[in-house]
């Protein structure tokens, strides 16, 4: 009896075996390959890379396979792996205006230089279940455009900035190196680079909910989607020993620049302000949410009221990480016999006193 309530080494070992068997499922069904996951579940792979803070499609696919498709568990696996990887170098800042754009839309102007480019979006698919996908089918045809897209599309916000109606987008004074939240703890007050880093790693659902709250009266953002672009971008290094830039490969990112109305304050004239979102892979929902939350977290700096959850940095940033949140919520299933025993004896004492008082004759 006594031993039964304590876990045993054997029980843990058996649970591993059972988990592996469940992951594989019916052996009559072919096993998933990592290539299949990378190719055919690419958005799941992107999300795991994004919140896992590691751009490696192969490892993200592996994590998804090991986690049996549980995105948060896969993010956790990837994070635990990346933590021990050595830092070989720091890349130069990404230049998103040099992106090889696969999609680019603006909600603020009907037409923009370079045009609106829909790209591979599900926005206009009418969301009818496509039963033809239930069985393997021939590869869908995709026609090539007559002319290639321009090499470089200017940012829509730069056009407004030229008119002086957009706040300047400057690095902080003295341009200090940004904090690295994977190496240093998040401290408050957190500057914008630290906040953006936290949001870029943050859980998509959390950011989406916070962003949504700003649109429903919990903060006043007045946002417009100035520009959303997605595509491939080169990662550049400048090794000291070489003295010139080298291209070490390309990654896919999604960038969202929100434009927000601003009535002006003691230190700034009426103008548009910015909210910024940048994430690995294709994820407009996350990039847009990030941009809305980034802007609402600037409330204090811009002299706006700061009463809403999405305007409070400690609230928004301390609860954004799915690995932290999931671990702490689920730690409640660990044994708490000792604490519970302490509470049980306390409640019994209080209850006995309560009952004694109830029974005492009133005077």
């Amino acid at each position: 009896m006594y031993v039964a309530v304590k876990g045993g080494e054997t029980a843990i070992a058996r649970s591993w075996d059972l988990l592996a068997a469940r992951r594989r499922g019916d052996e009559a069904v072919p096993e998933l390959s990592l290539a299949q996951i990378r190719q055919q579940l690419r958005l799941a792979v992107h999300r795991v890379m994004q919140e896992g803070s590691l751009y490696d499609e192969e490892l993200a696919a592996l994590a998804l396979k090991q986690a049996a498709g549980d995105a948060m568990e896969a993010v956790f696996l990837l994070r635990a792996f990346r933590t021990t990887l050595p830092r070989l170098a720091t890349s130069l800042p990404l230049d998103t205006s040099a992106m090889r754009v696969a999609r680019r839309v603006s909600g603020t102007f009907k037409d923009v230089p370079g045009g609106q480019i829909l790209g591979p979006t599900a926005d206009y698919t009418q969301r009818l279940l496509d039963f033809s996908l239930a069985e393997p089918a021939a590869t869908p045809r995709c026609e090539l455009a007559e002319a290639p897209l321009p090499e470089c599309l200017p940012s829509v916000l730069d056009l407004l900035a030229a008119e002086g109606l957009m706040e300047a987008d400057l690095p902080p004074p003295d341009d200090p190196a940004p904090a690295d939240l994977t190496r240093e703890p998040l401290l408050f007050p957190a500057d914008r680079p630290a906040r953006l880093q936290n949001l870029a790693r943050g859980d998509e659902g959390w950011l989406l909910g916070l962003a949504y709250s700003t649109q429903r009266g919990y903060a006043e953002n007045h946002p417009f989607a100035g520009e959303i672009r997605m595509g491939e971008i080169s990662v550049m290094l400048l090794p000291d020993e070489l003295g010139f830039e080298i291209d070490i490969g390309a990654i896919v990112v999604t960038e969202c620049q929100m434009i927000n109305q601003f009535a002006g304050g003691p230190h700034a004239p009426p103008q548009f302000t910015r909210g910024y979102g940048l994430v690995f892979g294709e994820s407009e929902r996350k990039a847009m949410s990030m941009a809305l939350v980034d802007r609402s977290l600037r409330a204090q700096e811009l002299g706006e009221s700061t009463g809403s959850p999405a305007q409070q940095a400690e609230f928004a940033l301390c609860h954004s990480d799915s690995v932290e949140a999931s671990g702490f919520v689920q730690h409640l299933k660990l044994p708490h016999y000792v604490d519970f025993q302490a509470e049980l004896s306390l409640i019994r004492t209080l209850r006995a006193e309560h009952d004694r008082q109830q029974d005492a004759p009133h005077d």
Partner: protein
Amino acid sequence: MTEPFSPPSANLDDRWRYNFGFLDENTKRMLRRALLKAVAVPGYQVPFGSREMPLPYGWGTGGIQLTAAVIGHEDVLKVIDQGADDTTNAVNIRRFFARVAGVATTTVTRDATLIQTRHRIPETPLAEGQIMVFQVPEPEPLRTLEASEVETRKLHAHQEYGLMHVKLYEDIARYGHIATSYDYPVMVNRRYLASPSPIPKFDNPKLHRSPALMLFGAGREKRLYAIPPYTEVESLAFEDHPFEAQHWSQACALCGSSDSYLDEIIADDAGVRQFVCSDTDHCRQQREAAQ
């Protein structure tokens, strides 16, 4: 049986090998520097660059980072959860270190040089040279009273702890007692208010002037702190409502101990209760001594 830390697949296996104790040496150095600061300022919460560990946050990531930072080849490790060596989480962490550090492990408190614990301090008195590593879910004792980290850091800096006594005052006004039974706040070295981690208050007196070094790690909250050997540790109280640890009218049903912390077990469907030692090593020793 699945090996969770084996190389993920054949074509990846040459990419890397785990360092001794899982963490790389630079991370260990960062942790040791933070620990030195913690020892120098007893009870002060040192922010540190907590790493993501292959264990969920809230399950002892702070504890395993501290253990990984101080463990050496000669160490003998004991891991307990709720006082027991064979609870699932304790087993998991002990296996982790056996695997990534290859050190000897033990369940005998006296034989251990390093003890990682969740929620208990062993009944066997600790000795000089031993290190206790506590897993801490919430390092900030003022957190439930003041949510803002900016504000609580100020309260510590200025030693403004009136708020904590307000809580204790309210307990007595409402219940006639201080209604905190575990994670009972302590004043370390007459300076910093600290959480002893969620140990029952029964264990608080063991912290006072202990010959062992006590290290506390909160991975999710990215804070660590320490109580060096022989440091004064006072459990908060009022002069006319002094600190009082739990006690039981029963003795352990297995070993007969009347001075150890007891777990209550529901022994059958009729709800019959049994009380047994939460410290499994202590219980075993008592039974062996009796035979």
